[in-house]
């Protein structure tokens, strides 16, 4: 099936988040820089523009070697419309809390989609 081909070969975990989140993840070993110097993470600080975040999101979700994309929830809220429109099965999109922004399930796009599915059933 086409779906199977879609996730074979996806191996990396990508991160879009603030300094603490990204550092922690990199420390755990998630970070990857390939031959073309492309990174699988984006550090978002107060100088990062929404455009840059969008760009990174688009890049990570269209790359074929990323299986999971983690994004701080407050950063996700900055690009909320794009997140809401995201409907690919791969990479899996996970909203994670940051040190200053605890997890709020009401904002999680995934949970909203899942709720909708249950309503339909």
């Amino acid at each position, binding site marked *: 099936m086409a779906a199977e081909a879609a996730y074979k070969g996806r191996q990396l*975990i990508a991160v879009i988040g603030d300094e603490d989140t990204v550092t922690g993840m990199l420390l755990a070993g*998630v970070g990857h820089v390939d031959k073309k110097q492309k990174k699988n993470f984006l550090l978002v600080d107060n100088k990062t523009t929404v455009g840059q975040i969008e760009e990174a999101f688009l890049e990570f979700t269209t790359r074929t070697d990323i299986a999971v994309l983690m994004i701080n929830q407050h950063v996700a809220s900055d690009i909320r419309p794009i997140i809401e429109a995201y409907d690919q099965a791969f990479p899996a999109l996970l909203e994670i809390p940051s040190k200053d922004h605890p997890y709020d399930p009401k904002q999680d796009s995934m949970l909203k989609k899942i709720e909708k599915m249950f309503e339909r059933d």
Partner: protein
Amino acid sequence: RSLNQAVLQNVNKAQIKVKTKNDNVAGVNLPVFESFQDGADSYELAGLAKGGQQLKRLKANYQKAINLLVELASLQTSFITLDEVIKTTNRRVNAIEHVIIPKIERTLAYIISELDELEREEFYRLKKVQDKKKKIKKQKEEAAAERKAKGLDTADEGGDIFNEDHDEDLLF
């Protein structure tokens, strides 16, 4: 702060990667993510300078977090995949229920009505034949009785060829 810088600078190859396996659940192919260590730990020597213990714990915690998150990601993707399958199955059910079954039912009804019609026609024909036979029989008996009364019939009479008994043509 300097630690963060050091960590950021030192990225080369990812050590934690994700493997995808295929799980078959009730006939649906579901992807399952599994995290695994790939190669040496880049940051093995990190934190030897200061706060090494804390760093070790921090690293371990983040790794645990990642494992849980990978599991969560698996469940999420399974969910989305299953949802697609459910939608497809629903479409199939609707098509069968509203198109295919009515068509077959109509064909069935038609066949039954045709058979009924044929059966009725057969009945009618049968009745007609029976009636005609009865009528002919009655006519013959009356004719025979009449001739006897007139004393025309004797046991010897062979009759001429023209009176020979032959099957009446059934005319309607």
